[in-house]
């Protein structure tokens, strides 16, 4: 039902908003887009610590991208 879909989408958006705020408060340097990707990965089973390490590695390797992508 479209109404249900809408509410689901709305709920998802709210969740991402809250998570974004939390991640900002925790100073994770994640922008909204990256955050949603990571959440998606985690929801699909990626280990959070693993993912965090990877991202740290990536940031290490691409310091110039930091400012661009908010990684």
């Amino acid at each position: 039902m479209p109404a249900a879909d809408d509410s689901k989408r709305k709920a998802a958006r709210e969740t991402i908003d809250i998570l974004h705020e939390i991640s900002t408060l925790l100073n994770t340097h994640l922008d909204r887009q990256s955050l949603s990707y990571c959440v998606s990965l985690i929801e699909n089973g990626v280990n959070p610590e693993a993912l965090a390490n990877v991202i740290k590695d990536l940031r290490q390797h691409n310091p110039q991208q930091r400012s661009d992508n908010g990684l």
Partner: protein
Amino acid sequence: MPMGHKPLDPAASTPRYQEHRTGLAGAAAPFRAGSMARNRDTGNAASPTSHLSFDATSKTECGISQSSSLTAGAANMMAHSVRPNALTDELVEIISGFSVENDKSITVEEQKDAVMQFYSSECQEVKLSLKIFYRWVNTAWELAKSPILPLWTLCKLQESLSTSLYPPNRVVVSAFTGSKTVHQKDARQFKLLRDCASKGLRNQHYARVNQFDVASRLDGLIEKFRILNNEPLADALQNRLNELRDQGTKSAPEILSFFLHLSDKPVEKTRLADLELLKPSVPPPPLTWAEIIADDPLNEEGVWDEVEFGTGSNSEESVSFDEEQSSDDSTPPSNPTQDARNLPELYDASDAALEMARNTMDEITQAQFWRQSGSEIVVITELQAIREVLLMLRGIPSSLFQVDKYDKVHSLRAYRIAQTSRSAFHDILDGFARTGTILAQLRGWTKQRYEQVLPQACQASVERRLWQFDGSIAEIDESFVTRTGSTVIVSILELENRVQYLTEPLSSVATTIQPDRHTAGLDFLNRLYERLCYLTMEGSDGTTLSYHYALYQKPFEVYLRPIVRWMQSGKLLDNPHSPIRLADQHCDLGRMWSDRFKLVPNELEHPAIPMRKVFIIGKCVRMLEELGYNNMHPAVDFRPPAEFSKERFEAVINRWVDSCAAPVITLQEHLRNSAHGQALWKSLDLLDGPYLSELAIRSIDGGDRYVLAELTRIRTGAPWLIRNIMREHNVHLCIYNALLPLYRAKTTLQRLSASTRSDKLALRQRLLWFVDTLLTYMTMDVLKPTLLQARTRLRQATDIDAMATVFAQLVTRLETQLLLQTTLRPITTAMASLLDLPLALSHVWETDVTVDELGNEYVRLLTFVTHGIQSISRDGEQTWGLLAEKLGWGCT
């Protein structure tokens, strides 16, 4: 594989369910242990089939069997809608078996296909799980394409991911490594990634997320904030965490753990203000009328008054212009309206003023050469002269030329250009003036008011050409004004050539239509047509001809409109000058064809249009309408030929009129086939049958009042359509009148008793013979062939006019052949006398006249008649000759 599964129940206790949610506990962990063992044992070879007996009936109760580890996972996943974590090493093994060691790069598609093939025999539940699985793969795929994780660093990702115990990662890896589109550039990278992937799976040493641990860490963080006097931050974090908990997101602990891993000294670095930056900026609320009015209520005096625009005079010689020009630019414009007094308060025009060098003003003033008054001749530049000429050609008032009330353009002598002599320049200007005159006259002509459509169409046609011309002139003007970069030659002589080229067609048109004589409408069309014919004869170049032809077409089409209307519907426009006019609107239907409309030939009408045909077509339409046929025929448009030639144009017109002639044919069909038509033939049949003879005989005794009435009834009682054909001719009466005396004579003779004297008898015989001869002549030699001929001709007639003509001719022929013409009066009188003889004979004993005398009279009259007929038959009808011959026998 002895995994002690307890049947999983969705309504089971939460911790277990949670474990399943996170996907690590419960079914998965024992799997892994077992599968790892299996991996080591069997290497990469996959023998999946043995594991895949899926028990369709058990969903919540997983088949606890060695073979069902995979299926159990799938079943679980289905039961709880969990993520594809539940797909185990089995699947992974299968897929990995395809790729790495064999150094084949397979695409995601290939992998998917392989798995799908594999599972294709299985039931829907497994397929569902695969769907979810692939969705996950695609998400990971999307991630791979995102710039955040550039591909070349994915090896790291693979490494880390594959160290976790999630089999689908393996697929992700393969997916990433396998596809060429993802990373086409570096094959070495591919190998690297693949190696990472293969390594990764064996190393799985990340612990699962402990949500309590996460919660406690977060609490600790919040404490820290509070301790360090950052209450708002602590509160903010606490609130958000509460909200998150309320949302009930499934993988919240994992996500929070992820954040915690990634967090970068929040205690020191986090600023609450950053939170505000997250919010997208709300645009300021749009301005509403209420706000504007609150700010500046529009109820001042004079705000709503009418503003007069354009009160300032625009003429070039006006003083006010000079004043404005010479005054400082920064004074506000004088505004005659009342609310101007508000403006200076609101804004100062000097804000809008531009700085301008003083000499720019002087330059401009000087460029306005027409201001320089004085007796001497002003020198202007060639460019100025050219532009003035272009203005004049476009019909705009210019300073070098003057247009009088007859639309004649004169060039003024007050100016000259530096490069040429005065006289040369004035000659050039005169040349332009002549051209300008032609154009001005044309323009003046197009501006006249006409009431009728046709002149207006003519004007419109010419006007269009004038606009095109104006456009060309404007282009030339534009080339002098805009700086497009290409050089433009400023030469008045060159302009002369160009202008001549452009105006040639228009001047040709002007000579044709002679606008100074105010011709429009039909006159215009006719002149143009003549010109077109002349041009084709002359063999002039195509452009002039096509120009004129284009000019001609639209007005001609407008001219055709009433004709089309007439042919289409038989309706006339209210034009007293049209050739087809209403003559007698309320005439009787029986005379509709001949009397209701009339065709007045008009010399002005287009010579090529066959007016008579058109007239007939319209009348047929009206008659069909009366008969009940309505709008049966579709309109046929007139399509003028693409190129003009007199013959072709006229041929097209004729063809077009013929193509509109369907109503005529319909009417003829109707006459042939319908009841109306039958009446016609029937009445003709009456003519040569015994009908009239009987009538004649009857009338001898009964008086002819009844008979005459009967005969009149034949004519007036005929259907109105037939009456239109027969018109005023009463053929029946005519023949009847011819037959009647003969029958009367015959009857009289027949009634003479036989018991009379022999001389009387002899005369009687002779008279009888005479009457019979005449009767035979009439019926056999005259009526029959004539009527036959008439019938044939009627059938062949193409329209009612033709039929009426046939009828009329029939009557005249009959009259002629029956010797009823007035020119033959002596003969007819003699014949009448002859026919009186029988009566005289029957009364001979009452009178003094003897039979002998009558006999002599008979011979005399007969001879006279015979000779008379003989003499006329030499030049006249053949049948007379026959009659004469026959009568001649009686003379001997």
